[in-house]
């Protein structure tokens, strides 16, 4: 059943040989190339759609894209840490909700810096709960996460009523306004929050931790083959705990970011399913930090765009066409192609082009679900190339395997 990527994981011939194909396999090389390619595509689309429009990749747009992609990036990295340790975390949404409230509360009381740390801890608390249930008690990962997702909004609403209601401007469903983290002026991107910079610094950091440290190796072993780790004296439970708590902390940070950097206020329901999009981001990124960042930029771009310009959203359809065309082409060039795999994206792409030509705007909710649709497309057409951790979702008990 398992489709081994034998074709693309060919043996590296002699160790010293450096060629493009080999270079392409290196993450550090591939990611910037993708990003560059994405920018070029956007520029092209913009030019085709409307030579006068500045919106698709203006400086402001680039800044917005960056800003709106941060929560998705952090949630995606969070999901990655948990799943790399073998624990599926669809509770990211709930942990992010906790992050928004705790972040807001902390910021109101102690200012944005300490507030952000408190938001992070709030999310970590959710992660800890998930870890206790799944790792210590062997509860199914989905079930535990669903419980957290149900509970978190109740907890925050309760807390908001208890605490925010006492402040001017606060109520059961919102906090007083909070200050933001502080920012720095950068070329092209305008003002960029320090927190945004920190968030993006997590991308190489996560890679380094997971692939270059003892902690990361053991954490990944817990997610790939826990029994192998166990037989070599690795305390699998400990690393699973670590993975899930880090996961919750990152989700909490994401929630806190929404409050201090995006809206400047805690509002009930403001995560708006971003935890789930974070999960989508992680899948899109093939459980890797670089890929997750790419996914976050793409999805965050869609998220940020709708706020600014409906024509831009319209033009975004063309981006979808390009993505699908590339998919179809790649399938067509692969030796294992099937009619469906090549045909379906081609047909969908054609339909989108027709739609684009017939209508001037798209429903504003359309690009809210771009990430979801794209993730489904990725799952359907690249399932064989995705490489989730082998043990993710399985309940591992020491001594029973």
């Amino acid at each position: 059943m398992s489709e081994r990527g034998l074709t693309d994981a060919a043996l590296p011939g002699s160790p010293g040989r450096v060629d493009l194909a080999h270079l392409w396999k290196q993450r550090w090389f591939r990611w910037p190339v993708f990003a560059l390619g994405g920018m070029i595509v956007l520029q092209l689309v913009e030019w085709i759609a409307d030579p006068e429009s500045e919106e698709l990749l203006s400086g402001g747009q680039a800044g917005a894209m960056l800003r709106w992609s941060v929560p998705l990036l952090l949630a995606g990295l969070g999901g990655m840490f948990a799943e790399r340790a073998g624990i599926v975390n669809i509770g990211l949404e709930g942990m992010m909700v906790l992050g928004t409230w705790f972040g807001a509360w902390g910021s109101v009381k102690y200012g944005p810096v300490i507030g952000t740390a408190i938001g992070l801890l709030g999310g970590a608390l959710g992660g800890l709960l998930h870890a206790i249930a799944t790792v210590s008690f062997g509860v199914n990962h989905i079930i535990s996460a669903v419980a957290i997702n149900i509970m978190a909004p109740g907890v925050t609403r309760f807390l908001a009523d208890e605490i925010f209601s006492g402040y001017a401007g606060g109520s059961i469903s919102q906090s007083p306004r909070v200050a933001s983290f502080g920012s720095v002026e950068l070329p092209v991107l305008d003002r960029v929050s320090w927190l945004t910079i920190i968030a993006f610094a997590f991308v190489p950091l996560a890679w380094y931790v997971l692939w270059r440290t003892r902690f990361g190796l053991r954490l990944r072993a817990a997610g790939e083959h826990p029994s192998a780790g166990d037989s070599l004296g690795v305390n699998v439970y400990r690393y699973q705990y670590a993975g899930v708590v880090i996961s919750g902390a990152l989700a909490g940070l994401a929630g806190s970011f929404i409050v201090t950097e995006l809206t400047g206020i805690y509002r009930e329901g403001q995560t708006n399913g971003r935890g789930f999009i974070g999960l989508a981001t992680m899948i899109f990124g093939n459980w890797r930090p670089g890929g997750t960042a790419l996914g976050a930029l793409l999805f965050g771009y869609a998220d940020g765009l709708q706020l600014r310009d409906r024509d831009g959203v319209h033009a975004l359809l063309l981006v979808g066409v390009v993505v699908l065309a590339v998919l179809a082409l790649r399938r067509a060039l692969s030796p294992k192609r099937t009619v469906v795999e090549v045909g379906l994206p081609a047909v969908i792409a054609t339909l989108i082009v027709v739609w684009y030509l017939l209508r001037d705007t798209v429903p504003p909710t359309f690009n809210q679900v771009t990430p979801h649709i794209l993730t489904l497309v990725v799952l359907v057409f690249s399932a064989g190339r995705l490489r989730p951790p082998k043990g993710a979702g399985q309940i591992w008990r020491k001594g029973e395997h």
Partner: protein
Amino acid sequence: MTAARRSRSELLLGFAAPVAAVLIALVVASIVLMISGSNPLDAWASMWEFGTRLETSVDAINRAVPLYIAGIAVALGFRMNLFNIGVEGQYILAALVATEVGTKIDLPGPLHVAVIVLVAMSVGAAWAAVPAILKVTRGVNEVIATIMLNAIGVSFVAAELLGRWDSAGQDTRTADIGESGHVPGINWLLEIFTRDVGKGRELYGFLFVAIAVGIGYHVLLTRTVFGYDLRASGANPSAAEASGVPSKRMILAAMIGSGAIAGLIGLPDILGELYHYGGDFSQGLGFLGIAVALLGRNHPGGIVAAALIFGYLDASSPILEVEGDAPREIVTIMKGVIIFAAVVAYAVTERSRRRRQVAAAADAVPTTSTEIGANP
């Protein structure tokens, strides 16, 4: 004799876990209330007093009816180890489309309702068929696929409603379904036993549908070959396959069946009280359905109890704010704690049950390695 005692103690253990979960939730909620400066005893007393009123009971049952259907929809998938997280999107989409169809047609009473029900079930089934097909053809994990499809479905509904608002300046809701499409209340059923139900409360006639769904689910699973096949696929897919159960067909059947039931979730409210689809339609029942199915251990009777507990919590919580005892959100916290405590308790008791059974079987059989039996 010992076997009988053992099975009785196991039954007791089965009940002990959910009861313990509710008690733990009470304790946790009490602590939270105390920390926040409320008196938990006052709060529970008001909730009890208010909750036992006839009108509140009607509210609770009306709330429990959709929850029960949601629980059954989820449980059907669970029995096959399929996580239909998509119940949420399936029922919301189904409710909107069915309501739309209901407003557009005019048929004699029962037929009108039947068409709406049929449409709702078909839409739910169709939306559930998407992840099912993706799973059997492309191996896409149904949890991820249904999460994505929930967002897509809900966003489609939102786009529909917003579009309406944009164009016609209307409220963000559909038109009303005609009189013939309403399901009459069944207060007479209660009034046989007690006084008249007041304050305009109507016990949903859809209660009967929920009961029928529960019975149908139970009969299907425990009394039919199909149900056996379904449970076998859930218990051990490879063994089921070797026994002649076509696994892909079972995934499709379970998922689509689950979606069809999910299509019904919104109808008690729409056909019994609202008669339209709009902002006042309650969302989140799909996720609560997961909780209810878990708490009820996928058993049709257990789900009744779980749905009623959640229904009563919801129906009796408004009094907390009226009386100023505590914020009503304490109830959501309780629900969460109940789910958590229950799943942990189930996981723990399940493991101890396994251990005891293995030990008991080893005791019951005096084996030495040289014993050779078998004389057919």
